[in-house]
């Protein structure tokens, strides 16, 4: 039988120093921030915390300056964005088609269905802060109830957008 290694207080401090500096810890702090605003992000609202932790990856806060492209039409990328502050403009073939304000999610369609970006999103205020994240497709396979909630949220979002468009057409 193997002899166990005994760690003393100095060793534990060294372990904790690693922990503090590790990418893992930075990720988990960002994840905690995401969980604190989870229900404000309609796409991931009501998803079980543990399943969400398993599904989400490459979570980061990003700042963009005026006229910066956040996504470009035709690009293939997996990020989903949630605007924390600022305003963005949406362009399709260089024509402005919409405005995205803080609290809005965008990029989810291309990320989930793995298609090209169908519009460009450009920073329209002096500064825009977004929370960007990807869905880990391997882990998502094992989070069926979370994926069901995610698709339901996505359907609700699309429905809301369609209703808004209908109202706009009626008004015109």
């Amino acid at each position, binding site marked *: 039988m193997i002899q166990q*290694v005994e*760690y003393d207080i100095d060793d534990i401090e060294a372990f904790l120093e690693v922990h503090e500096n590790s990418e893992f810890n930075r990720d988990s702090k960002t994840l905690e921030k995401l969980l604190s605003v989870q229900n404000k992000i309609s796409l991931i609202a009501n998803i079980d915390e543990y399943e969400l932790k398993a599904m989400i990856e490459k979570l980061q806060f990003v700042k963009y300056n005026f006229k910066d492209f956040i996504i470009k039409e035709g690009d293939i990328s997996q990020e989903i964005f949630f605007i924390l502050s600022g305003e963005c403009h949406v362009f399709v073939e260089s024509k402005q088609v919409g405005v995205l304000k803080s609290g809005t999610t965008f990029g989810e369609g291309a990320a989930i269905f793995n298609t090209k970006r169908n519009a460009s999103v450009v920073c329209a205020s002096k500064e825009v802060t977004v929370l960007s994240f990807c869905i880990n497709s391997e882990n998502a396979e094992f989070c069926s109830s979370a994926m069901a909630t995610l698709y339901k949220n996505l359907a609700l979002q699309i429905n809301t957008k369609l209703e808004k468009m209908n109202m706009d057409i009626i008004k015109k």
Partner: protein
Amino acid sequence: MNIDILTNDILALNDSFFDGAFDIVDSNYDFIDENALVQPKENYLLTFDFLNTSMNHFTNLDFNFVNKTLKKVHRDVNNLYKLHLSHQDYLSDLEKLFEKSFEKKIDLLIQMRSEISHIQNNDFIDAYDKETIEIITQQYKQLKTLYFNLFKDDFLYQSNNLICSIKSILNTKLFYFDQLLWMQANKSDLLKRLFKPINTNEDINSKIYIKHRLSIDLPYTDEYRYLTKCLRIYK
């Protein structure tokens, strides 16, 4: 034959066989929980050889670079790795393991063997004795098979539990070993000379070091393939 008695015999023997290893697992889990250590999603087990070789290589170049904690973690991961390998080895030939470590400890089988040897030790063995030996030998074989099947089920269950636990502990410890190794290596002036051709302002870590190794190693060698797999873990 009461199957419960046989089952209890096997459970007791398996428990005593795994006892020490599960004690190690429990104390390691306590250590991880008490100190809220990271349990990474990535499977660091694959990096064991890379980290171990790097550690030995760096120690040969500058044995002063190893501090007390790194030395302990190195010993710890090696011990756990050996424990995990030894338990995986047991699974390769369960019959041999049963005969070597269990058969001789089962009271009923001991009794039957002693009965046979008692008869065989007689100066004169008649036809009746021969028949008795044959009957007991037959019963012994049947009972051994019964015991072996009970042993196999419980052993596989306990063994899988144990191996999974050791792997998860080892994964955590390897993560810290990796980080501590590079924390110390980046402090060593002698090792900095080794890293000079890497030509980066950043601190060297496994990812940077493997990328450098891949840039100078010959492709299609086993080492190249292995390092490529390791690199995926540090994506």
